[in-house]
C-alpha cells in the first residue's frame, strides 16, 4: 500500500521569507510522524499549506493515493485531513459538545430543507451526530464538560477538545500543532496515552511538538525543519543524535 501522505518539494514564501523550501516527506499509514524544528522553522506553515489555509508556491501533495488538489480548506477536511491549531481556535462561545458536533458537519448531509421539514432522516442523522459527539468527548476525557463553553475550559481541556473536534470529521490523518503546549508533564503523559490510542484505532497522526520527551517517546519517525528546509528525518534515536539537529534545535539538553 502507498504512503498516506506524500509531500513533494513544497515551497512557500512570505515576501522575502522562505518559510518552506523544497520540503518533502512521506507519512505512512497508522504511524505517528513528528515534525519538529526551531521556532519559526516553518512547521505551522507546512500545516497551513497542507490544509489549504495558504496556497503553496510550488510542490504537490498526494493523499491516500490521489493528488490533493486543494482549492479550499473544507475540501481538505472532506478528503480526510483534520487539524488542530497552535493558537487554539475553538468555537469559543459554543459548548464543548457543540464544538464536536460541528466536526461532524463534513460527514453528514442534512440541508436547508431537511432542517426546515425535519423529516425522519434528518432526525435520525441529528441523533447520530449527538451520539458520536458524546462518544468522542468521552474518548478524550471530557465527558463531564460537554455543556461548558469552550472558552471557559482550562487550556489543557481546550487542547483535548480540539482533538475531539478534529476526530469528529473522521480523518485519516490527524495533524496536531503543539497539542502539549501548556500542559504539565503529567497531563502530557495523559495526552500521550490518548494519541497512542488514536493511532492504534487506525488514525495516522502528524505531530508538531516541542516537548521532546513526548516526541521522542511517541513518534515512529521524525522530520526536522530549520529555516524552511528539512535538515533531518528518521527514527527518534537517529534524529536525537543528529549533529545538525542538536545544533539548531535541541541544544545541550536531551530529553
Amino acid at each position, binding site marked *: 500500500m502507498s504512503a498516506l501522505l506524500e509531500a513533494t518539494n513544497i515551497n512557500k514564501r512570505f515576501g522575502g521569507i522562505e518559510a518552506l523550501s523544497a520540503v518533502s516527506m512521506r507519512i505512512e499509514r497508522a504511524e505517528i510522524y513528528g515534525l519538529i524544528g526551531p*521556532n519559526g*522553522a516553518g512547521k505551522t506553515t507546512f500545516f497551513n499549506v497542507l490544509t489549504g489555509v495558504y496556497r503553496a508556491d510550488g510542490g504537490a501533495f498526494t493523499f491516500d493515493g490521489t493528488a490533493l488538489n486543494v482549492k479550499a480548506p473544507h475540501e481538505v477536511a472532506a478528503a480526510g485531513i483534520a487539524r488542530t491549531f497552535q493558537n487554539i481556535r475553538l468555537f469559543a462561545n459554543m459548548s464543548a459538545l457543540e464544538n464536536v458536533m460541528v466536526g461532524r458537519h463534513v460527514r453528514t448531509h442534512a440541508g436547508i430543507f431537511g432542517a426546515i421539514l425535519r423529516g425522519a432522516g434528518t432526525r435520525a442523522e441529528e441523533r447520530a451526530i449527538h451520539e458520536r459527539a458524546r462518544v468522542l468527548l468521552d474518548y478524550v476525557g471530557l465527558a463531564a464538560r460537554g455543556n461548558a463553553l469552550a472558552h*471557559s475550559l*482550562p*487550556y489543557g*481541556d481546550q487542547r483535548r477538545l480540539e482533538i475531539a473536534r478534529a476526530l469528529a470529521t473522521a480523518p485519516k490523518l490527524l495533524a496536531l500543532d503543539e497539542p502539549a*503546549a501548556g500542559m504539565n508533564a503529567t497531563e502530557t503523559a495523559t495526552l500521550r496515552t490518548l494519541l497512542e490510542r488514536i493511532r492504534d484505532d487506525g488514525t495516522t497522526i502528524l505531530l508538531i511538538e*516541542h516537548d521532546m520527551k513526548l516526541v521522542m517517546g511517541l513518534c515512529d519517525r521524525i522530520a526536522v525543519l530549520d529555516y524552511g528546509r528539512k535538515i533531518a528525518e528518521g527514527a527518534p534515536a537517529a534524529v536525537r543524535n543528529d549533529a545538525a539537529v542538536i545544533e539548531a*534545535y535541541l541544544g545541550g539538553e536531551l530529553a
Partner: protein
Amino acid sequence: MLEVSGLRVSYGGINAVKGIDFTVRAGEMVTLIGANGAGKTTTLKALTGLLRPASGSVRYNGEDIVAVPVYQRVKMGIALVPEGRGIFPRLTVEENLDMGAYSRDDSVAAGADRDRVYALFPRLAERRRQTGGTLSGGEQQMLAIGRAMMSRPRLLLLDEPSMGLAPLMVQKIFATIRAIAAEGVTILLVEQNAKLALEICQRGYVMESGEITLHDNVQALLANPQVRRAYLGEDL
C-alpha cells in the same frame, strides 16, 4: 516585596481563586505550579490589575495596590509576560518593544535596553521591521519577554514563558530569566514545565483548583512524591 493574602477572584459565579496567601521577597525567584485550570493565570491577572479580586489584599512594597489601576502598576515596577504572549499584532517588533518602555521617561536608556533585548534574541533583531502578528509562536514569546524587560521591572511576572518554545529556546529563555533575576529583579514564574521551574527558582507554591496546597523551598518540592507524580510526570 509582594504579600498576597486572602485573594479571591471569580468569573461570574465561578470561583477561580479561592482565598490564597503567598509572599515573594525582594530579589527572590518564586514559582507557582499547578494543573490546568488551577487558577495560576487568574492569580497573575489579579496581581497586575487585569482582574479585580472579589476580596483579599495585594501588598506591594508594603502598599495595598488592589485599587491601583493597571497602567499605574507598571510604573510601580510590575510587569507581566502574559499567557498567550499578547503581542500587538500590527505593531512592528521594534514598536512592540518600545511599548514596553512606554511608562519610562528615559528614551536613551530605553534605546540601550532595546539593543540588549536584540542581543539576547538575535531573531528579533532580524525581524525588527516585521509586524508582531506574523512572527512564529516562539518568536512571539521572545518578543513578549523582551517587551516586559523594556519596562525595567522590579517584579516580573511570567505566565508560562516556555510554552511553544523549542528546547534550545527554552534553555535560552530560562537562562535569560536567571540573568534578569541576577540583576536584582524579583521573579514570580508560572510554569507548566515544573521541573525547569523548580530548578531555577528558590521557592515554590503549588496550586490546585484555586487553592494553594503546598509551599516549600524547591528542593523539598522536587523531592515531594506527590509533586513528582502530579507535575513531573513520574510514575512512582
